[in-house]
């Protein structure tokens, strides 16, 4: 059919208008022309759809790969612990600061008085809250935030303080009924996107007694208006305590906030009171309820469940003790007195203490393994539009990306066969490892609720990507729902293109409320309305920054551009490894290898499960003989301003670990001033590189430190330092210059 028809058309459409009169083509010809256009257009749309899909895959793969970056960070923490003696001076202080909670020296009453006494200058034109809050206050907040105003630190502190008081009396699991209201609205992740929250309020109305809401966690991080979002949500919480409900998400966690942007946002907006606000937030976040149940039939949690989830046990958990999912409960081994033992048994004790997700004293082995397998993943791009998302707790293994759903054999609790060897008098005594203390079981319950994801296959396996929580199958869902006589599980935690998705035979709904999460046009947001008949209704929306509606292909192009940029940065971050591997196939040094070889190398070095052959035209050039010019993958990107003592290799390493370094610096910078001392910088950098197995000589570090100490006062502005390692996309620059 194909070829024949087109030739026929070609013959017939030879122009033959000699007299200018209107020629009416035969109906058959018209039909053929129509079919041709339709065939062509449908093919075009299919190609667009393919591009849209792989764009989505790229964003998700990078997100999941980024989680393995976090692995290095958390195993770095344990490495630091193991090597605490090597860190002279700063040692215990630094470690304890990392891992222990901040002790609040003030009593409640004193604190409250202190806030009341904060003076707000006359020139402040933003909302002034008065407690107890009224509708006037919430309206004032909404207007102010629409006008891009910032709420004064005094009111933020007071608001957080009142919220903390309020939340303390809430149970872990909140039971609601639809009988008094028409419908309950359930929203998912917002991630700092104020536009989405305002759009929801616009479409669905503000929270009130007639219009109750549940927000299912992840209010903060990634977006730039996380502060405004929690202010609004907490204000409504205080105003309508019976009709506004907030569940904790995995991002309501101060260590996550260090990585994913909320801490930075607070410190930038609140220079005077930022630190205190962050301290209060730690408490508030940990006091947020963990679950909501509607009509004893619908369970709502942020992440999901595991085969160990038990609502009755969950109700008894001391939730405020789990300040962060990344802070593991210290296993109490005092009664074994293991610490004073020889090195090997003290390693055991640390193993049992840390054996949840964080790699336990295996950092040296882990780093050797990493070197061998070249699994260093580049840090995600830090450009403003694109994402670095990925949330994870520490994950102990770098599992093979080729079979992403294969669970690693890493127990969160020591297996029963592990036996502790404890010296007693002159011999070793075998002891059963202690039963996991309650604290650890509680931690497990909470982490499962906040971090788990549903999967299609039966069973419950450890969520190796995120490093915490489980993948739970339909059977686990079925079992839990039956156990508690429930009919539906609503959760969030995962971005979905349509804003929501059903799975497990309709027993699980994922609801996600941040539209354009990866990039403009990447996905819709949605919310659910649930009435007494408990049949969910879905409402979708998408925030659009441009006033003119983009066509489908424009949207795809924008999202695709962003995804490809992020992907190219990943390639750049591993440039030397890639080039070395390419060259192994290119013995004659022609600069070219086959498509197959190129795809193989990229897949094995980057360990991203992507359709490389489909993507190749967007990433690398072909030569005249049909081979790939492998150097062309890197042509698009150039490094930023170089710092003299920094060699290209070192620059690449620094670029790759930007995100991790940023977090570490943020932690060291206890007073959030943006500055750390040269000594702290040196020590941290040394530790980090030795942990990674990267050789950097002392002299280089010293030179580097000195040269970035711009005002020669012995301290380094690490934000400036990190800025130096941004990369520039040359094509973007060209477009900007031409545009």
């Amino acid at each position, binding site marked *: 059919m194909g070829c024949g028809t087109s030739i026929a058309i070609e013959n017939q459409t030879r122009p033959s208008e000699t007299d200018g009169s209107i020629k009416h*083509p035969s109906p058959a010809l018209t039909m053929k022309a*129509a079919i*041709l256009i339709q065939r*062509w257009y449908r093919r075009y749309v*299919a190609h667009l759809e*393919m591009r849209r899909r792989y764009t989505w895959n790229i964003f998700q793969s990078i997100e999941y790969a980024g989680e393995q970056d976090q692995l290095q960070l958390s195993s770095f923490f344990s490495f630091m612990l193991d090597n605490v003696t090597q860190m002279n001076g700063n040692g215990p202080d630094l470690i304890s600061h990392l891992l222990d909670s901040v002790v609040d020296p003030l009593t409640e009453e004193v604190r409250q008085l202190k806030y009341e006494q904060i003076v707000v200058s006359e020139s402040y034109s933003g909302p002034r809250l008065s407690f107890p809050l009224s509708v006037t206050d919430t309206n004032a907040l909404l207007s102010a935030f629409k006008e891009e105003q910032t709420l004064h630190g005094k009111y933020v502190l007071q608001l957080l303080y009142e919220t903390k008081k309020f939340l303390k009396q809430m149970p872990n699991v909140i039971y609601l009924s639809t009988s008094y209201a028409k419908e309950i609205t359930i929203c998912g992740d917002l991630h700092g996107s104020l536009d989405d929250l305002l759009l929801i309020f616009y479409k669905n109305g503000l929270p009130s007694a007639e219009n109750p809401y549940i927000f299912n966690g992840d209010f903060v991080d990634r977006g730039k208006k996380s502060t405004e979002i929690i202010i609004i949500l907490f204000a409504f919480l205080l105003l309508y305590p019976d009709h506004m409900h907030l569940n904790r998400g995995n991002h309501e966690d101060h260590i996550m906030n260090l990585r994913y942007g909320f801490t930075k946002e607070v410190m930038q907006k609140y220079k005077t009171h930022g630190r205190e606000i962050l301290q209060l937030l730690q408490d508030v976040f940990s006091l947020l309820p963990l679950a909501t149940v509607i009509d004893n039939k619908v369970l709502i949690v942020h992440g999901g469940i595991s085969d160990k989830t038990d609502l009755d046990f969950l109700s008894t958990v001391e939730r405020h003790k789990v300040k962060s999912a990344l802070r593991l409960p210290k296993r109490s081994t005092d009664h074994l007195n293991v610490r004073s033992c020889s090195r090997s048994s003290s390693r055991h004790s640390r193993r049992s203490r840390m054996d949840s997700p964080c790699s336990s004293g295996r950092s040296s082995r882990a780093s050797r393994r990493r070197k061998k397998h070249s699994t260093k993943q580049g840090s995600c791009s830090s450009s403003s539009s694109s994402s670095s998302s990925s949330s994870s707790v520490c994950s102990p293994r770098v599992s093979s990306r080729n079979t*992403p759903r294969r669970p690693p054999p890493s127990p969160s609790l020591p297996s029963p066969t592990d036996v502790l060897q404890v010296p007693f008098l002159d011999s070793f005594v075998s002891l059963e490892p202690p039963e996991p203390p309650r604290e650890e079981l509680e931690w497990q319950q909470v982490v499962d609720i906040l971090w788990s994801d549903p999967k299609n296959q039966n069973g419950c396996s450890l969520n190796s990507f995120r490093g915490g929580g489980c993948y739970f199958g339909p059977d686990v869902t079925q079992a839990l729902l039956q156990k508690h006589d429930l009919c539906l599980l609503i959760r969030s935690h995962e971005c979905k293109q349509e804003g929501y998705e059903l799975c497990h035979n309709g027993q699980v709904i994922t609801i996600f409320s941040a539209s354009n999460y990866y990039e403009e046009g990447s996905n819709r947001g949605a919310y659910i309305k649930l009435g007494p008949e408990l049949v969910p209704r879905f409402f979708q929306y998408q925030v659009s920054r441009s006033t003119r509606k983009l066509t489908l292909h424009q949207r795809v*192009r924008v999202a695709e551009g962003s995804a490809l940029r992020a992907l190219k940065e990943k390639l750049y971050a591993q440039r030397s490894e890639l080039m070395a591997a390419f060259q192994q196939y290119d013995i004659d040094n022609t600069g070219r290898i086959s498509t197959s070889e190129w*795809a193989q190398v990229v897949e094995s070095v980057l360990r991203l499960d992507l359709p490389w052959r489909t993507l190749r035209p967007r990433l690398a050039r072909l030569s005249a003989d049909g081979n790939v010019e492998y150097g062309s993958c890197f042509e698009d990107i150039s490094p930023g301003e170089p710092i003299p003592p920094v060699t290209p290799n070192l620059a690449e390493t620094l670029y790759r670990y930007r995100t991790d370094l940023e977090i570490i610096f943020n932690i060291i910078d206890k007073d959030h001033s943006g500055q750390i001392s040269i000594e702290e910088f040196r020590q941290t950098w040394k530790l980090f590189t030795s942990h990674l197995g990267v050789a950097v000589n002392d002299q280089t570090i010293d030179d580097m430190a000195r040269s970035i100490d711009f005002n020669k006062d012995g301290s380094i502005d690490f934000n400036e330092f990190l800025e130096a390692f941004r990369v520039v996309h040359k094509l973007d620059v060209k477009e900007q210059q031409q545009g």
Partner: protein
Amino acid sequence: MADKYSADTIITETQKRISNAFDVFDHESNKTVDVREIGTIIRSLGCFPSEADLHDIIAELEEEEPTGFVRYEKFLPTMTKILLERKFRPITEDLLLQAFEVLDQQKKGHLEPEELTKYLTQEGEPFTQEEMDEMLSAAVDPDKNVILYKDFVSMMTFDDTR
């Protein structure tokens, strides 16, 4: 380097391309795709089948008892054959332009949205309203409210083959 032009290599490369495309739509990672995506996959591999062509292919690919899913083991040989035989060859820019010119009976150099809609939703293998709306949103010149098909064709071809 191995001889890149051997038949085996070509077949292997082709199959890997097919595998890549298939995987993009294999949401459950179990080597099956929804039968409704088959058209998209085939087209994204560079083929221009008509709806009738697709109908035939899908009939071939479905199980005896249709499950709504197509398995990779069945898809691969069928698709390999299609690609190696170069069935459903691309429609060139020139050809496409000529097709528009046929529809432009009065030789105006442009088409009214209603004209194009009439043809494409009533003739041939009709568009759905959604397909028509989407095409119009890309094709209609916002100032003149007509379809300047020559520009449209070159723009789309450029975007498609970039």
